[in-house]
C-alpha cells in the first residue's frame, strides 16, 4: 500500500494490526514557496545562460521547472498520491498567475504609456487641423461621440431590457417566454460586428447615411440582452412573500411590480445597466461600419459622421507614427479609466444595495 509506514517518523509507531500509520513524513509548509523559488531561479538561469531574449521563454522554463521540482520532491519525500495532489495544486496556482500577468501587463502598459500625452489639452481638443503624424491634437471629439452614442443606446435599451425582464419573471409562461429566454441568451453571443452589419443592411436599404444614431442602434442590440439577463437575476432574488404580501392588500399587480418589486431590486438593476454601459462603451466594430469616424467635433449624433473613443484608438493605431501611437495609448487610458470606474461604481452599488435576502 502506498501509505505504508515509514520507519523514521518522529512519533513512535504503535504496533497496529493493519500496519497503517497516520503520521507520515511531510514536507514543511513553506515547501511550495521553495519550489517556486527553485523554478524561478532555473528559469532565469537557463534563460540568461542560453541568451533567450524573450521573457515568455524564461517564464515557461520557470513554470516547467517549478512543476517538475514539486512533483519529484514530493514523490521522493512523501508518496505519489501526495505528489499528484501537490502537482494539481501547483498547476492551479500557475493557471491563476498566467491569467494575472496579461492583466497587469495590459494595465501597466496603458497607464505608463497613456500618461505621456494625457493632459487637459488632450481632453479638450479635437484632431481638427492636426496631421496624424504630428504631435498634439486631442480626444475631445471622440469623447463627445462616445458619450452621446452610449447615452442614446442606454436610453433605448434600458426600458426594453427592463420590461422584457419583468415579462420573463412576472408574467412569462409558456412557449413565448421560453423562446424569449432562449433568444436573450443567444443574443448575448451576437458578435458586435454582426450587430453593426445588421444596421448597415437597413441603412443600405433605406438609404440612410452614417451617423452617431446608427452606431447607437447597434450598441442597443448589444446592450439589451445584458440588461435583461442581469435584471432578471435581480428580480428573481426578490422574495415571493413580498409580492404576496402586497397582492394580499388588494394592490393591482402592475403597481406591486412598480412599487414593491422594482424598488427592492433597484440596486442590482442599476449595477446591471452600468456594467452593460461599460461593455458597449468599448465597442469598436459597429462604429467603424456605422459612424465612420471624424477628425472634427460633431455634437449632433443624428447627422453626419462622429468619432468615438475606441474608434479613435483604432484610427490612431493604424496611422503608425509615434505621435499617433502615443495618442492611441492616451485615449486607451481614458477609455479604460471610464470603463473601470463604471465597473467599480456598479459593483459598489451592488454590494451597498444588495437585497438582504441575497447570500
Amino acid at each position, binding site marked *: 500500500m502506498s501509505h505504508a509506514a515509514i520507519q523514521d517518523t518522529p512519533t513512535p509507531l504503535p504496533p497496529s494490526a493493519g500496519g497503517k500509520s497516520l503520521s507520515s513524513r511531510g514536507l514543511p509548509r513553506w515547501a511550495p514557496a521553495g519550489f517556486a523559488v527553485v523554478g524561478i531561479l532555473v528559469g532565469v538561469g537557463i534563460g540568461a545562460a542560453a541568451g533567450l531574449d524573450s521573457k515568455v521563454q524564461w517564464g515557461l522554463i520557470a513554470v516547467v521547472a517549478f512543476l517538475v521540482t514539486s512533483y519529484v520532491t514530493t514523490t521522493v519525500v512523501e508518496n505519489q498520491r501526495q505528489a499528484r495532489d501537490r502537482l494539481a495544486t501547483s498547476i492551479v496556482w500557475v493557471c491563476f498567475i498566467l491569467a494575472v500577468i496579461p492583466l497587469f501587463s*495590459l494595465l501597466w502598459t496603458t497607464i505608463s504609456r497613456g500618461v505621456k500625452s494625457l493632459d487637459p489639452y488632450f481632453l479638450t481638443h479635437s484632431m481638427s487641423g492636426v496631421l496624424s503624424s504630428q504631435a498634439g491634437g486631442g480626444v475631445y471629439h471622440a469623447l463627445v461621440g462616445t458619450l452621446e452614442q452610449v447615452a442614446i443606446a442606454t436610453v433605448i435599451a434600458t426600458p426594453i431590457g427592463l420590461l422584457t425582464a419583468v415579462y420573463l419573471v412576472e408574467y412569462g409562461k409558456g412557449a413565448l417566454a421560453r423562446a424569449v429566454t432562449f433568444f436573450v441568451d443567444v443574443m448575448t453571443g451576437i458578435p458586435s460586428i454582426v450587430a453593426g452589419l445588421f444596421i448597415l443592411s437597413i441603412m443600405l436599404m433605406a438609404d440612410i447615411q452614417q451617423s452617431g444614431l446608427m452606431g447607437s442602434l447597434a450598441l442597443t442590440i448589444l446592450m439589451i440582452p445584458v440588461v435583461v439577463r442581469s435584471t432578471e437575476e435581480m428580480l428573481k432574488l426578490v422574495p415571493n412573500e413580498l409580492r404576496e404580501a402586497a397582492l394580499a392588500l388588494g394592490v393591482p399587480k402592475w403597481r406591486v411590480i412598480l412599487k414593491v418589486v422594482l424598488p427592492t431590486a433597484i440596486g442590482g438593476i442599476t449595477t446591471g445597466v452600468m456594467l452593460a454601459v461599460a461593455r458597449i462603451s468599448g465597442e469598436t466594430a459597429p462604429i467603424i461600419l456605422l459612424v465612420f469616424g471624424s477628425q472634427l467635433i460633431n455634437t449632433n449624433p443624428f447627422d453626419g459622421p462622429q468619432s468615438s473613443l475606441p474608434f479613435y484608438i483604432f484610427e490612431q493605431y493604424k496611422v503608425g507614427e509615434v505621435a499617433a501611437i502615443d495618442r492611441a495609448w492616451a485615449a486607451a487610458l481614458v477609455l479604460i479609466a471610464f470603463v473601470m470606474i463604471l465597473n467599480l461604481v456598479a459593483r459598489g452599488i451592488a454590494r451597498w444595495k444588495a437585497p438582504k435576502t441575497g447570500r
Partner: protein
Amino acid sequence: MASTTPTDTPPAPPLSPRSGTSTGRAGDKIFSGLSKGSGILLLVIMASIAGFLTYRAAIAISKDEGNFLTTFDWNASADPPVFGIAVLLVGTVISSIVAMVIAVPIAVGIALFISHYAPRRLAAPIAYIVDLLAAVPSIIYGIWGAIVLVPYLAGLNLWLDQYFAWTYIFDQTQPGVARNMLTVGILLAIMILPIVTSVSREVFLQVPRMNEEAALALGATRWEVIRLSVLPFGRSGVISASMLGLGRALGETMAVATVLSPSYLMSLHLLDPGGGTFAQNIAAKFGEANGVGRDALIASGLVLFVLTLLVNGAARLIIARRKEYSGANA
C-alpha cells in the same frame, strides 16, 4: 400585516367592479402588454437580423463571379466581383480552436483555484480581478497585443519552429514578425478566459457539499476530491462555458484586426503570417468597399452570425438540460 389590513377598510369597495379595479385592470393590461411587447420586440430583432442579413447576402452572392464557399480571394469591390469565404472560415475556426486549447484548461484551473484552492479571504477579490479582464475593451487588447505581445512572442515562435517544426502546425515557412494565428489565438484566449472561468466557477461552487464529503471521508486528497466529485459534476458546465467562450472568440473583431497581418492564403502553419477571420476581414475591407463590396461583407457576416448562433445555442441548451437534471436530483 396582510391579515389585519382588510378589517381596516370597509368590505364592499375592493370588490366593487367600478372603483378599485378599473384603474387596476387597465394598468395591469397596459403594463403586461408593454412588457410582453418588449419580449416580442426582442424576437423581432433576432428575426430581422437573420432576415436582413440573408437578403443582402443573397444580393451579393448572386453577383459573385467566384465561388462563395471555395474561392481563396476577396475582391468584392472589383469588376467583376470575385470573393469567397474559404480562407476566412478556416482562419476563424483555427484562431478560435487555438484560443480554446489554451484558454479552457487555464480557465478550469483558475475556476478551481477560486472555488477550491485559494485562501477563503482571497477568493472573492481574485474572482473580481478575473472579471476585470472581461471589462477591458477589445480594442485595448488589440493594441496591447500588437505593440506588447507580438514582440514578446518572437522568441517563442523561433523556439516552437526549432523544436516542434515536425508537428507541421509549428513549422514556420515564412519568417516574419509574430503577427500570425498563434498570436491571435493567444490573445483571444486571454480575452475569453473570464467568461469560461466565471461560468465554470459557478458550476464548481454548486457541487453538493455531501458529494465532496463522501470523497473526503474515503481519505481522498484535495485533488482526488476534485477528480471524484467536482469534475464529474461540473463537466457539462465546463463544456457549455467553453462554448460560450468559443462564441466570443469566433466573433472577435478588433483584437484580430490589429494583430494579424492578413492575407488570403490558406495555411495551417500557425506561425506563418497571414490568413484572416470573418470579423477581421469585415473591419479591414469596409473602408474601401463599394456597393457590392459591402453586401459581400454582409454575406460573410451572415455566415459568422449562423456560426455563433449554433455555438451559443448549443451552449445554452447544455446549460438548460443540466439545470433540469440537477433540479430533479436535488
